[in-house]
């Protein structure tokens, strides 16, 4: 006879199976048997399955809603097929579609139209998607690669071979492990949590929640158990494994898991050849991950800055024609199309001073800056070099922001927010990239009207923030956009972080974005400074000459 704890364990096991794959007929029967007449088990089931449903809704909302919302939210073709309703019902549905945009479901409803209606369909469909990528190249100075493709910092990497002839590169796998690759090296990126090192030296730092990261080599497979280790593969296949912190397991390639040996911190082993069955102990002589980062000299890359505006103008009113400072611009600031000015207002900029609390080693932010009074709506400036989503490339941007939001708006009023938007001068209302902070303080990305991605993170209202955006543009394939808001209490990362406040999904655009807009919707006062657009994290995020304590 089974005990209550046996029954609970069995119930847990069945619920795990139910969530992760489904139940067989026998398992369904057993689940029914466990729930029958047991309110406690039923309660447990309902809690687990409600969470599972909520997670599916939260993370898979797009697919879910496409199929579950009434036809008002269906793509046009499907809508035509919707013949069975009465005229009144159809009217209600159209009404609902319009209303939904006003009641907060716009993101979900519009997500069924992930492509701009003006955009030709079919392009990019064959290209790479974000899901194909498994790692990011974080840092690559003086690197010589053997591949034809030019690899740039920030580039997302799919599974494939990396042959580094010279230099030092830092990669972060999407599973969480960061690695330093020292040339010459031959590395096959296999998945979010696995790589194969054919030659060279690889140092791995895997935080606890990235445990399980595996490096395969000709002589041994090494599995990280939440630690730091180095693996060196010499020509001919001799391989050394150095455990620098925590523990790793190692075994011959293809050996069963139970044959794996554990290697603790401060220990190293060497296989004298690929076919050698047993390794011998050797002294640890690999530098720590942090030492390698120090050697990498992760310094600023001003040379990769495309545009910069520090609002270095005299404090007071600044006529737009005189707002021509900074670098990388094709003209002065101007009033954005559609922005309304109060009577008698020519759109002059207001330059203020000392309104930001700059908690980071940023050059600007302490002197002059742009002030947006409650009546300010939007100003735009044209870039000399556009951000092109129709070509392969990686762009970053940053800006200092502080916004004292207005009191809660009346129902029906537009949502107060502050934004940095990239738009096209030739198709102003077409695809855009909007980094948006609405009054409810959850950072958002808005790629075109209605396609909104909202962060889980709520940022602190009223304090100075450092915004960083990243755009991975692909000529063929999905474009990826990331947005991170740093609050006053947060240290800026030396390299781009593993996590962002919010990122896009399913964006395909060919837009060429040559306008930068600083926009404030509805009330409150806002200050902006240090607008930067560049082609490296290090071009837009300030850092000491050489970062001493990178993460």
């Amino acid at each position, binding site marked *: 006879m089974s005990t209550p704890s046996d029954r609970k364990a069995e119930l847990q096991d069945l619920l795990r199976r139910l969530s992760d794959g489904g139940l067989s007929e026998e398992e369904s029967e057993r689940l029914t048997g466990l729930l029958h007449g047991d309110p406690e088990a039923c309660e447990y089931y309902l809690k687990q399955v409600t969470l599972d449903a909520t997670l599916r809704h939260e993370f898979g909302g797009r697919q879910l809603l496409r199929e579950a919302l009434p036809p008002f939210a269906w793509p046009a073709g499907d809508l035509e097929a919707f013949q069975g309703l009465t005229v009144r019902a159809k009217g209600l549905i159209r009404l609902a579609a319009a209303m*939904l945009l006003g009641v907060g479901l716009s993101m979900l409803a519009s997500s069924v139209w992930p492509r701009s209606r003006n955009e030709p369909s079919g392009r990019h469909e064959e290209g790479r998607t974000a899901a194909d990528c498994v790692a990011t190249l974080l840092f690559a100075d003086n690197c010589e690669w053997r591949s034809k493709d030019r690899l740039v910092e920030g580039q997302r990497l799919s599974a494939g071979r990396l042959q580094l002839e010279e230099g030092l590169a830092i990669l972060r796998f999407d599973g969480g492990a960061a690695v330093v690759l020292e040339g010459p090296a031959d590395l096959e990126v296999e998945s979010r949590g696995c790589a194969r090192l054919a030659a060279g030296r690889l140092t791995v730092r895997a935080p606890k929640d990235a445990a399980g990261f595996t490096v395969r080599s000709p002589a041994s497979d090494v599995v990280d158990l939440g630690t730091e280790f180095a693996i060196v593969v010499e020509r001919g296949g001799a391989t050394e494994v150095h455990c620098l912190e925590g523990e790793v397991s190692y075994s011959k390639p293809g050996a069963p898991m139970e044959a794996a040996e554990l290697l603790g911190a401060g220990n190293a082993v060497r296989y004298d050849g690929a076919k050698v069955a047993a390794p011998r102990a050797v002294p640890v002589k690999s530098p720590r991950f942090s030492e390698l980062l120090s050697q990498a000299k992760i310094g600023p890359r001003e040379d990769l800055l495309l545009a910069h505006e520090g609002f270095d103008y005299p404090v007071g009113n600044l006529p737009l024609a005189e707002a021509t400072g900074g670098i990388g611009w094709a003209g002065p600031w101007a009033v954005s199309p559609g922005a309304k000015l109060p009577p008698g207002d020519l759109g002059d900029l207001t330059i203020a001073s000392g309104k930001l609390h700059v908690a980071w080693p940023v050059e600007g932010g302490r002197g002059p800056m742009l002030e947006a009074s409650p009546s300010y709506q939007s100003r735009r400036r044209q870039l000399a070099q556009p951000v092109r989503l129709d070509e392969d490339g990686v762009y970053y941007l940053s800006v200092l922001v502080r916004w004292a939001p207005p009191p809660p708006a009346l129902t029906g009023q537009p949502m107060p927010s502050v934004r940095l938007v990239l738009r096209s001068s030739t198709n102003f209302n077409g695809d855009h990239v909007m980094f948006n902070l609405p009054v409810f303080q959850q950072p958002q990305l808005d790629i075109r009207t209605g396609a909104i991605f909202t962060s889980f993170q709520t940022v602190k209202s009223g304090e100075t923030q450092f915004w960083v955006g990243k755009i991975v543009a692909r000529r063929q394939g999905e474009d990826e956009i990331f947005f991170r808001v740093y609050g006053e209490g947060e240290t800026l990362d030396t390299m781009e972080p593993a996590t962002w406040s919010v990122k896009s999904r399913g964006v395909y655009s060919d837009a060429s974005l040559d306008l930068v807009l600083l926009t404030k919707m509805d009330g409150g006062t806002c200050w902006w400074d240090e607008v930067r657009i560049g082609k490296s994290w290090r071009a837009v995020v300030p850092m000491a000459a050489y970062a001493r304590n990178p993460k």
Partner: protein
Amino acid sequence: MDESREAFIREITAAQSSLWAYVFSLLPDHVAAQDILQQTNLTLWRKAGDFQQGTSFVAWASRAAYFHVLTYRRGMRRDRLVFNDEVFAYLAERQAERLTERVPGERVTALRGCLEKLPPTSRRLLESRYAPGASVKDLAQADGRSVAALSQVLYRIRDTLLECIESTLAAGGAA
């Protein structure tokens, strides 16, 4: 704009996550559950005039969903049913009670707060797991782990989340 229609649209919008949880708990097959949710939504639109302002929208809507699930079950082979009729009826009643105990969206808000507290890798793992079309099998393959190991990891993360959500809801505040 008719105020009652406007209110109805707000209600149905806010109730989506509760309705989805209701249907999915009675029919834990996400494809079938999506169909049922869609049919339920259409019924609600058609019967909008029957809803009494001031009463629980989720209770009213889950009743409509219940009948759709029941109809669906009647069309299924007995051996494909996850629950027998008695367990199904109990779960339907209890789940409707659970969902109406809370303001629609409260559970989602608590979940979001708790997701923020998870280690980034755990959150990313959940995101990958629950992305449309994702499966534990594919994810395990991509990660180089066994399905059982990944399933166990996911279960632990969900357990942590559940604990956090329950304590957040019990405290009556945001996570």
